[in-house]
């Protein structure tokens, strides 16, 4: 391991300065915090995108799980169906519903973070 022969001159780092050093011409950020119409529209867009995503995935769960009691009531034959000796309702509710819920949750986390990244990129866009 080589020893650095000429160390750089030491500088004092003041962490509080890091925030002050941000670009003063950051207009979009100002739009956001100062409640201009542009900022309001941006936030509304983000809220709408996140809500639409949440509602869509909730609809997937309602369709996948919520309709089961009705299905079993309307078509009792489905409830009598057996897979590997286990009645289908036991298999669906006792086992498969849990990985299904986790899968929907993972999809939500992925897309919700992407929405936020898009929003951050929009705000930080330098050419505004």
């Amino acid at each position, binding site marked *: 391991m080589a020893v650095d022969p000429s160390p750089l001159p030491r500088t004092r780092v003041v962490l509080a300065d890091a925030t002050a050093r941000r670009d003063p011409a950051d207009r979009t950020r100002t739009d956001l915090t100062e*409640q201009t119409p542009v900022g309001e529209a941006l936030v509304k867009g983000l809220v709408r995108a996140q809500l639409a995503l949440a509602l869509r995935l909730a609809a997937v769960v309602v369709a996948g799980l919520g309709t089961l009691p009705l299905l079993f009531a309307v078509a009792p034959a489905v409830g009598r169906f057996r897979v590997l000796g286990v009645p289908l309702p036991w298999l669906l509710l006792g086992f498969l519903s849990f990985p299904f819920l986790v899968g929907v*949750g993972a999809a939500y986390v992925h897309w919700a973070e992407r929405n936020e990244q898009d929003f951050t990129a929009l705000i930080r866009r330098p050419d505004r």
Partner: protein
Amino acid sequence: MNPYLLPGLVVVVLLTVAIGAYGLRFARTTSDFLVASRSVSPSWNAAAISGEYLSAASFLGVAGLVLRYGVDVLWYPVGFAAGYLALLLFVAAPLRRSGAFTLPDFCQVRLRSVPARRLATLFVLFIGCLYLLPQLQGAGLTFRTLTGGHYAWGALLVAVVVTGNVAFGGMRAITFVQAFQYWLKLTALAVPMIFLILQWQADARPAVTPPAGAVFPAATTVVIEQDAVLDSGRAVHAGETLSFAAGDPVPTVSAVDAGFGDGWLLPGGQKSLFATYSLILATFLGTMGLPHVLVRFYTNPDGSSARRTTLVVLALVGLFYLLPTLYGVLGRIYTPQLLMTGNTDAVVLLLPEAALGHGHLGRLLGALVTAGALAAFLSTSSGLLTSVAGVIFTDLLRSGRNGSVRDFRLATLLAAVVPTGLALFVSDMDVSQVVGLAFAVAASSFCPLLVLGIWWRGLTDTGAIAGLITGGGAAVAAVLLTVLGPPLDGWAAEVIGQPAAWTVPLAFAVMIGGSLLTGRRRPDDINATMLRLHAPESLRT
């Protein structure tokens, strides 16, 4: 009595206190006590949330319900897990970003209204007590089942350990304790289940619902607990002892409500469609309104970690819920006498010895399961007590002076006294039913408040208060009627006993209607609030 039982329970209590004391070394400020200074990693936090969430109702109650009613009650574990998905989709990240520590705090942040805050405080206290009471009762009943001792000692033991731990360690210590208890509970159900399944294989896989009806797997003595009539027409009286040989058919007892044959095996046999959907609505939407669940979100450093934490919780809770169903099913084969006494909540505790015999293996596994049950009582009661104490501390004690750690300890003591006192005097309430009612109240009060408050800028304080009073109030009235009132039957029993299907839509409708009528009262800073709730932390200056 099982000789391994006492050492197992002592080890759990000692470990709980020791881990609490270890956490205490780091807990010095009020912030440590309340929110662990927000320095808990998502995986620790997720294990802690799961440990806190899996209560006596999950550990003992779900298996007991499955043993009794079969496939229709599988909606309980599915709903208990799915509640975290609803929480993830609609609440987790914005709630964390709001900076609210409790639900009353959220009212303050979003609605800028002190009356709404006071009302939310009342609901937190009611739900907290309603949920704490069955935990202590479950502890008492387990103690009585296993040791033959007095019910009150079990309830008091858990109450004292929990109060001490919360008062002296606060949230920081509790996080480690809860995380440990999640893994203990999972192990306590998973390890015995491996041996139980091997035993079932070795017994040539006896059928769960034999066509000729269930038979006793071994010679059994049953003590009848209520006056009833057997299916043979013979009348039996409380305290009467019946003896059966191995292979005798299991009689049904008229005083015990349970499903048999296809009614147990197939959907729709035990619950009506209305009751099923009401249960689904209560559990899916109630989780987000439980005070001890929300407090945990404040310990995440930011919104995205709150989301990731919730996802891990969903996976951990789902993993756990695979097991109680299997206990209920195997209980059908190995402990059919519980269907005669009606003491079905004990199936998890009794199954290892019933299936594996009274040798060392059966007794060791029986002690392990009991230790897990104790962990369930301890962790859920700790979480509930922390959150109720947090609300008493911030809303009742701190007004006018700065809160100190001593005040938090006083709040903990206050929060523990009422449910402990109630648990000592009321011992005949059904554990799973009371927990289900707590979910219904949470789903009809805090769920609309959170969902509308986070996603709809039109929610006003007047609308929120009107919705809380009508929807939440209706659910509270239904709970009080069910718990204290006369037994109901017919449609009234369904509508009152499973109220969520009408109280949740009512709460949403009144909140929306009331807010539309009072649109002028919308807070001035609603845009700033929405920005704070939804914008990623990286944009904050």
